């Protein structure tokens, strides 16, 4: 089953993140996987060799799959005492040089939030797979929801940026996990795979390509690990044991990591840079996919598993000669503001189906001055085309 070798090129001593072309660990070709499993395979393909996790429905399968696969590829796995321990261990391992991952759901993500802020503030790359389920609180553990769209961005205190991607297929559970690692490494910030129980527990074919690209964090010795002359730059990240005498701290710090809890200029500069390093590159980071939008008067905006139902509904309307299009958000955060405004700006009506009470709809409402119909489905079921078709009927 395991063929091909992850060829690791020598990392250059450079200020920039480095990309390299790699062969996958799974044999190229077709595989039949569950969503949770595909995320684990994507992580391994991206170079993840540290996983710390805690059981939670519906994400446990990712953990169970990776513990076995790590024996094949040589990774470090630990089941920690809780989610807080898991994300803490991930950050510690990241500073020891690891690409670290965990897999959880809404309740676990809530517990991890303090450390998400720590990872953002210390510019520690980590990847969190969130297989969302119906909430709030314990909710419906085995049923889907999209309730973490805002939590993943705002869950921790203070002003910081994260990157979140939303897969709609098992193929994307694999590919977007690789992309989450790549973005996390390039921008030294936490990245999330915002999946849901619908796509997490689904089984589909995945086509593994011959090669893929992975990115490694910028790496240099003797340079400040927490500061850049560029106001939106990403500094290099050495690791423990390199002889750098690293000063990693969650307190406000200067470019070398010295605590500066009474210095206004340092705090201002750091908070701004951490936000700008992602926001100034939002157009490069944020990806969308549009279908039939060129002449569309009506648009459906959707993401994740819901986008599959949206695609079917929009295609049905197209088949009836109606000018409807679909804008699928692949990146949830940072928002694809420019693409959204450009693509939706000339429409007359937008329909936004979500498995929550309009967590993305409120963002689109803010960005475009077009009439918006929300389909807010919070019943623990995946979206079907029916409510979308009904909403589209009322649009003309």
């Amino acid at each position, binding site marked *: 089953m395991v063929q091909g070798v992850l060829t690791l090129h020598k990392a250059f001593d450079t200020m920039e993140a480095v990309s390299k072309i790699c062969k996958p660990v799974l044999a190229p070709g077709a595989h039949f996987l569950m969503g949770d499993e595909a995320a684990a395979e994507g992580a391994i393909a991206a170079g993840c060799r540290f996983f710390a996790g805690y059981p939670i429905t519906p994400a446990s399968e990712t953990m169970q799959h990776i513990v076995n696969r790590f024996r094949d590829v040589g990774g470090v796995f630990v089941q920690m005492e809780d989610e807080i321990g898991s994300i803490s*261990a991930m950050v*510690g*391992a990241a500073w020891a040089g690891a690409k670290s991952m965990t897999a959880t759901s809404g309740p676990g993500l809530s517990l991890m939030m303090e450390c998400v802020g720590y990872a953002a503030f210390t510019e520690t790359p980590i990847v969190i797979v969130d297989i969302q389920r119906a909430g709030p609180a314990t909710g419906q553990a085995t049923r889907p929801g999209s309730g973490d769209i805002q939590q993943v961005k705002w869950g921790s205190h203070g002003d910081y940026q994260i990157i979140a991607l939303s897969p709609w297929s098992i193929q994307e559970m694999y590919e977007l996990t690789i992309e989450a690692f790549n973005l996390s490494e390039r921008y030294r910030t936490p990245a999330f795979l915002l999946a849901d129980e619908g796509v997490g527990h689904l089984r589909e074919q995945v086509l593994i390509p011959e090669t893929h690209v992975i990115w490694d964090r910028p790496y240099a010795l003797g340079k400040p690990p927490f500061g850049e002359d560029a106001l939106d730059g990403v500094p290099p990240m050495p690791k423990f044991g390199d002889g*750098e*005498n690293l000063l990693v701290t969650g307190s406000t710090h200067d470019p070398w990591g010295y*605590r500066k809890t009474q210095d206004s200029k340092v705090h201002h500069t750091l908070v701004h840079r951490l936000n700008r390093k992602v926001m100034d590159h939002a157009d490069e980071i944020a990806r969308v996919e549009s279908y039939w939008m060129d002449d569309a008067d009506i648009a459906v905006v959707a993401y994740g598993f819901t986008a599959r139902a949206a695609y079917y509904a929009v295609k049905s309307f197209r088949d009836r000669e109606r000018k409807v299009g679909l804008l699928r958000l692949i990146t949830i955060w940072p928002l694809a503001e420019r693409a959204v405004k450009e693509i939706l700006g000339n429409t007359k009506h937008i329909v936004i189906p979500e498995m929550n009470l309009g967590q993305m709809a409120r963002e689109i409402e803010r960005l475009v001055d077009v009439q918006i119909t929300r389909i807010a489905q919070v019943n623990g079921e995946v979206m079907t085309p029916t409510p979308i078709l009904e909403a589209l009927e009322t649009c003309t």
Partner: protein
Amino acid sequence: MSEELLKYYRQEVFPTPFCPGCGHGILMGAIVRAIHDIDMPWESMLFASGIGCAAWIPSPHYKADTLHTLHGRPVAFATGAKLFNPNLNVVVISGDGDLAAIGGNHLIHAARRNIDMTVICANNQIYGMTGGQVAPTSDLGDTTVTTPWGNPEPPFDLSKLVAAAGASYVARYSVTQIHYLIKALKKALQTKGFSFVEVLSPCPTQYGKFRGIKAAQELYKDLKSRLVNQKDAQSMSRDVLRGKFATGEFVIS
């Protein structure tokens, strides 16, 4: 501090932020002496610490890799680093509130795992940095800012707790027992498995003040009067031992 030991410190950040009379300065030096005396390679060290005065012992004073984490979590962060790079010599230095209250779960699980690291708990029986709130190590009846009518709760015996959880080496000494403290630190560092050294390190600014002991010297005398050799303590009743600390080694592997 002798000249040859100064090389382990970032002297540019001196003076330390510790209050006059704080025990942490003594502990800071004791740890450095222990590592130096056993020839543990300084470049292999990783010092993790949480939030609180004791957590500032390694960060930023030790010229080594330091990891200043979230409150209560240094043991969990350190677990990740150690698992991914077992060549690191991992030492966690933090306070009683950080390690045993908010961090209690990580502490007992790391002891249960017997992961190869040393945890040094500076126990001053109070939350010092935040202004003197009660800690799970404060004595029954102690007056603190959050127990103004006397603490209604009894304290942990931290050494017993960690010993029961599965640690390979457990010892408790006061900063007033510097010779034995350094010996214990050396043993802890050299023990393969989870080592725990509880260090009684007084806080005159908060704890002393609330106990009505104004002068730091009096607080140290008071602490010395509350120490009992752990062998003698075994034959003493709980009533007699209340408010006292049994010092010595509890688990040796």
